[in-house]
């Protein structure tokens, strides 16, 4: 893909999914938005393939379980929602704190959150993503907005999906930990009648030991407070360090390549791109890759949580063609299988040097680091 594609076509008309008379557009893409009006204008001007955008709300009420670059006030959310709707794009607000320290269960906490939901409802927000089951039920009971169960509710089984559906979920974003467990995805699909959404490029470690602690930390750091005055983000540093020492972890991480979306269309037609802390250019590059179901560059360009390693590793995305066939039948007993380890040695390169003088060194030639 050349640079022209980074810029994408100008948005010339309404969302094609909404325009299509028979709704036979292949997928609905939920796209991250960095949170300010300029960013939204740029984003929607850059692609016709955006079905919905999502952004965080104000951290004063619920907060969010991921890092965030903005804290839009209600009037800003209203202005942006109106603009998105004028372009035929839906607006989703993400309030997916995984830990609120019980504040939401206090009378004051409940009243503040209820007030905030009411305002968002009046603005005309299409959907709200939450992680706490209490907020799922509260939203479903009292408001018209679609209730989306966050990835941070960790729905990875049909039983859990059923619980959330009974609480009133309109959509469940399945835990990416099971993105390569097709049996579980199919069981979830067969168990619930609500919509399912798959997050394609989160790229967290498979079976990450830091997952709950890290999201809880973010939730407090990006929530109503008191905010922790931390020294460093231990979990993030450790996450990167583990991958540098053992690059097969990048392959095992349950991302979905643009080319492999077709393998998931019997599960859902709705896919979510992660990355609300990146530049619009980065987001649009992802949108075009997933909309076209093809990316000819470095897979690292597309991955959200490990963007800081994009100048460390080069993984030619197209060399991963066909790997999904193994993952479809994989029983995830890595020490017996070794497929991802062999694949990592074959396809991953490390960069050496910088700028114009950069070189790619095959990982295989460095030898076994594990």
């Amino acid at each position: 893909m050349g640079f022209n594609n980074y810029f994408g076509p100008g948005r010339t008309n309404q969302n094609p999914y909404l325009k299509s008379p028979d709704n036979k557009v292949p997928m609905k893409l939920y796209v991250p938005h960095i949170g300010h009006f300029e960013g939204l204008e740029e984003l929607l001007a850059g692609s016709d393939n955006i079905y919905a955008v999502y952004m965080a709300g104000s951290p004063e009420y619920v907060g969010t379980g991921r890092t965030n670059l903005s804290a839009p006030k209600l009037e800003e959310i209203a202005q942006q929602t109106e603009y998105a709707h004028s372009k035929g794009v839906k607006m989703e607000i993400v309030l997916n704190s995984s830990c609120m320290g019980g504040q939401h269960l206090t009378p004051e906490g409940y009243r503040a959150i209820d007030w905030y939901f009411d305002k968002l409802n009046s603005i005309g927000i299409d959907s709200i993503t939450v992680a706490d089951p209490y907020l799922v039920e509260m939203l479903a009971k009292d408001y018209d907005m679609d209730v989306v169960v966050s990835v941070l509710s960790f729905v990875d089984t049909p039983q859990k999906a059923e619980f959330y559906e009974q609480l009133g979920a309109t959509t469940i974003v399945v835990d990416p930990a099971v993105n390569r467990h097709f049996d579980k995805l199919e069981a979830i699909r067969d168990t619930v009648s609500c919509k399912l959404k798959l997050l394609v490029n989160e790229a967290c470690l498979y079976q990450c030991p830091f997952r709950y602690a890290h999201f809880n930390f973010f939730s407090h750091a990006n929530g109503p407070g008191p905010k922790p005055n931390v020294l460093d983000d231990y979990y993030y540093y450790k996450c990167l360090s583990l991958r540098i020492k053992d690059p097969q972890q990048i392959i095992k991480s349950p991302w979905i390549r643009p080319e492999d979306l077709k393998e998931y269309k019997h599960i859902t037609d709705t896919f979510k791109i992660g990355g609300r802390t990146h530049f619009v250019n980065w987001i649009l590059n992802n949108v075009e890759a997933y909309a076209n179901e093809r990316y000819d560059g470095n897979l690292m360009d597309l991955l959200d949580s490990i963007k800081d390693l994009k100048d460390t590793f080069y993984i030619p995305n197209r060399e991963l063609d066909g790997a999904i066939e193994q993952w479809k039948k994989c029983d995830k007993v890595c020490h017996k299988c070794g497929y991802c380890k062999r694949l990592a040695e074959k396809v991953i390169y490390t960069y050496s040097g910088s700028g114009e003088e950069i070189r790619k060194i095959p990982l295989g030639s460095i030898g076994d680091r594990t």
Partner: protein
Amino acid sequence: MSMTQELLKARTSLENNLRELLGVPVFLIEMDAFALPCGCGGVTINTRGLQLDDLEVFEEHILKYLTDTVTSLDIEPSFLFARLIPGTSEIASINARVLCNSCYMDFGRGSGKQPRPDIYIMRFDRRE
């Protein structure tokens, strides 16, 4: 003069200029030179006590001081910006960065002063 001596001198001089300009004890708590694997390089100056309002009102003056500072360090002042603490008017750092081609595309896509909510651009020299 060694690189560290130059950095020390530049930090003190810029801090004095900002204090004089704003009339408040702005602190430049750390000035770091950096080189990134992508090919970007420059300096980051971590600040305390500097706010977005100060920048908006005195942008012309602050831009001149920053340009003089980075030029004295032999850094091309082609891209000068402030990093804001998201959701607040606090400025976390002011920065000079000589962009690699890849990062140039990230910053250069938009035309406004805030390509992301946490970045406020003071100077951006567009390439042909």
